[in-house]
């Protein structure tokens, strides 16, 4: 295909991305260098790094950043631990069952964050199913505070983003023939060794892709931490939301967003490096 034709084909999508994605981002970047005039809602358009200085100088914001980072890391790890066996199990099913299972994996992803999260409120709340069950078994006497704690938020994030881990894993497990496992076994490898020496290295590209997706999604998640955190677990995204829509300090909210963007880029770069390394291995 001629270069011009190719260009025409991608032009609509490229223009759309330019208009609704890149331009707002550039505006955001400029906005983050402005400030609010003290005591007013009007903008001081002289360029300054004051917003960033404020962000990195305040332990409240840094604490929120740290909370967001470690919750994302734990979410990613939990998704990996749950996703690896799940992906392997699904791949080994026969045709129809497999399609059905993949469909079931995708459903939570396409039905939005709000509905399942509200369901989790009922599940994890003080009078919810989990606490109720633990009480009726006599394991606890008063309700465990699951909502408004990082644990509740992490449960919600894992629930929401597990498909992002499982789908890339399925793709990479599908490409590993059963013969590899059997060859390893016939050469004297136990199941654990087969897994560690043969399957895991070959799944690395999928792990990198899934990990990247889950981590980035958790980092920027808003609805889930907002509802399950009940305002007591303040993530970076909810902080930016607060600043923009409650405090109406758009420049500072923009600075928060830019930091998040920088973090995403760093993580994506790391993920890509791991994926490239894994591909070279394979």
């Amino acid at each position, binding site marked *: 295909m001629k270069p011009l034709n190719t260009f025409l084909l991608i032009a609509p999508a490229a223009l759309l991305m330019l208009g609704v994605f890149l331009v707002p981002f550039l505006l955001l970047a400029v906005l983050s260098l402005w400030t609010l005039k003290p005591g007013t809602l009007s903008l001081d358009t002289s360029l300054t790094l004051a917003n960033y200085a404020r962000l990195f100088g305040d332990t409240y914001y840094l604490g929120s950043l740290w909370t967001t980072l470690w919750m994302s890391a734990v979410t990613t790890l939990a998704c990996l631990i749950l996703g690896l066996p799940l992906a392997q199990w699904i791949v080994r099913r026969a045709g129809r069952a497999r399609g059905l299972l993949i469909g079931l994996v995708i459903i939570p992803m396409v039905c939005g964050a709000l509905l399942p999260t509200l369901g989790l409120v009922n599940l994890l709340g003080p009078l919810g199913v989990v606490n109720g069950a633990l009480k009726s078994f006599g394991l606890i006497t008063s309700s465990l505070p699951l909502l408004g704690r990082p644990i509740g938020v992490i449960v919600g994030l894992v629930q929401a983003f597990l498909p992002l881990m499982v789908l890339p894993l399925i793709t990479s497990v599908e490409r590993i023939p059963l013969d590899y496992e059997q060859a390893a076994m016939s050469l004297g490898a136990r199941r654990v060794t087969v897994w560690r*020496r043969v399957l895991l290295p070959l799944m690395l590209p999928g792990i990198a892709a899934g990990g990247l997706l889950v981590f980035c999604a958790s980092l920027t998640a808003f609805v889930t931490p907002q509802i399950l955190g009940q305002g007591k677990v303040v993530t970076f995204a909810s902080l930016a939301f607060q600043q923009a829509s409650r405090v109406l300090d758009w420049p500072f909210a923009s600075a928060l967003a830019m930091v998040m963007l920088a973090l995403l880029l760093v993580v994506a770069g790391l993920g890509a490096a791991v994926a490239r390394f894994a591909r070279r291995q394979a």
Partner: protein
Amino acid sequence: MAATPYLSVHAIQKHYGPVAALPGVDLDVERGAFVALLGPSGCGKSTLLRILAGLLDAEGGAIRLDGQDITGLPAWRRDIGLVFQNYALFPHMSVRENVRFGLDMRRITGAEAEARVDEALALVGLDKHLSRRPSELSGGQQQRVAIARAVAIRPRLLLLDEPLSNLDAVLRTKVRLELRELHDRAGLTTIMVTHDQAEALSTADRVAVMQAGRILQYDTPQALYGAPATAFVAGFIGSPAANLLPLSAAGPDAWLLADGSRWTPPATLAPGSAGVADRGDYLMALRPELLSLGERSPDGLPATIKAVEFMGGDRLVHVDVAGCALTARLSAVDRLPDSREVSLRVPEQLPLLFEAGSGAAARRSRVTNNKI
């Protein structure tokens, strides 16, 4: 076999759902032998191989290897080398790492491991590209790596699953010879699964012909060709395979052909001389290479030439005999009769007869020179 065989497979069963892949297979293999499991796809030969390797569980029966019952032993404790059809080389490891994998599993390290890797690679004649990944090698080289990897663990048994099927025709003939040489050099008891009879007959000491999960005949290649036990084996072995001409006995002197016509053959070919009953339906096995064509004569089989295939050194002449398609293999220098209406001449040594219904041999060949 007088002594206990090295490998003894007894009444091994395997079902896939209601289908019996193996209804109960017996097989004895002597130490150092090269055995081929030969049969069409779906005959259960690969299932048997995987059961031997421990990758599939048998539902019944027992396997003894070198005096040890290995029936319930997991694959990783069997010390059985397996070469996969598609080689199954680990793509994330170099050639050397692949070959060393089995040694790693046996905690063999350092100089000893390196020496054993070198030894295995030398055995398959591979000395280049050892730090490359399998994907950078040709199919033939990949196969050598796969064999070296299986041989490096010094297996008690070497299993080859369709080892030549992924190679091109030229390479296949070459590797066939090499496999045999490798077996002789390494002295490994080897079982090869194949659907290609040329592969089985040319490489193995003994061939087990399988059909529908059963071993129909387990014999030397010469015996399979010369004295097939059933009509299936006769119709399977040989290239082209033996013709199976249906006929029924009509008294001691004459046969009835499929279209009801009467054939009065020379006395040596008559039902009476074959010692079969006056009545009954039979299949007469006729090797294409032992047939000849001539002018119509009363004691020859009346045949019509349908097609002639030129094969280089010889010709395949396809004829119709009483509605049955038969093939004769003639040397390219033999003159064909002018007319299409010819006589098919059967050598006057008595051909093998099989019962039409069961396919069992009605009468063993008296001929001792291993020809039908």
